[in-house]
């Protein structure tokens, strides 16, 4: 079976998307909206398709090695893997933040109570 190569139009469209998306991500990272981990994981959405489009021989090599007939299946598999890894870490991070948020709210309420009790005692003393 002859390996079909992506057309120049496909390569241009995917490369343009990758470039624009990377620039957007970079801007948001520099603005402090994403950290480096977010930047790395989200940029995979651009890097992986661009890699498959720009280096088709490598894409076919990977698909042959993994025993998958179509390289785009490998590409989507890789993308899903990245997305799942990102979601997994994000869920853990969200859970941790939720717990910290709850603990902070509890602490704040207890500190207010303590402050009011101290003020009450000072009022009684004076």
């Amino acid at each position, binding site marked *: 079976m002859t390996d079909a190569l992506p057309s120049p139009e496909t390569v241009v469209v995917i490369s343009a998307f990758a470039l624009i998306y990377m620039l957007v991500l970079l801007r948001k990272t520099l603005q402090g909206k994403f950290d480096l981990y977010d930047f790395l994981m989200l940029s995979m959405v651009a890097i992986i398709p661009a890699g498959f489009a720009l280096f088709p021989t490598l894409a076919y090599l990977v698909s042959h090695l993994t025993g998958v007939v179509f390289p785009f299946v490998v590409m989507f598999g890789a993308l899903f893997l990245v997305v799942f890894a990102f979601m997994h870490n994000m869920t853990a991070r969200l859970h941790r933040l939720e717990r910290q*948020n*709850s603990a902070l709210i509890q602490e704040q309420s207890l500190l207010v109570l303590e402050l009011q*009790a101290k003020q009450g005692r000072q009022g009684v003393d004076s």
Partner: protein
Amino acid sequence: MADMGLGMGINTGLGSTDTCRDGAAAPPVAASRILLIIPCFNEEASIGGLLSEIAATGRGYHTLVVDDGSSDATSAVASCRSPVARLAQNLGIGGAVQTGIKYAARQDFDFCIQIDGDGQHDPRAIEMLLDAHRKDPTNITIGSRFIHHAGFCSTRMRRAGIRLIVLALNGLFRGGGRITDPTSGMRLLDRSAIAFFAKAYPADFPEPISLAWAMRAGLTVSEVPVEMRARETGVSSIDGLKSASYMIRVLGYILLARLVRAS
């Protein structure tokens, strides 16, 4: 004296003059080291009556009302008679109860007793919990509706669900006695249980899951029969299809608690 601080029943001054015009005073200082934790969410209609009932027992219990982000006058009404911890956001019953437990741990209380702010629990039953603990000092003493089946025992559907939770808890954990009412919100915690739950308390379905966590950690649990009343105000958050989802998730959490090693 360790409890000369927050556990003195100081009026925190959060109440407005409108809500406090009945002239109710903060409860008298008592020597006992028992804290009643009353988690509340929009309970302005019932919290005042409940605190009056507690005062009427004449036991001088320390109380802490935990206002779980109410949008009504719960805090204002409660602060006439009790210290109130106001949570800036609604954390749910688990977060509210743990706030009270943390307070009990820091103020060095010997026991804390959780009772609902909706009027379902009769404050006179508090003494029964304490008596039961004196006779059989377990770490957690639950006020159970289902030992004598007296008073309000919930709907048939919910009782069936509770039975499933009971089967799971009694089958998977060995915590001393046989639990009949794992969803009861009326329970006594001793110092060990206070220290344990101050560190970690489940946010979701806290009553049954906290028992699973406690028994996994080797804490002991016993029950005493109490009568509960139908809630005075508000509606249960677990109704209709939510009941099925509740059951599945609670059973899943209990199983998970069994599988995961205690930290």
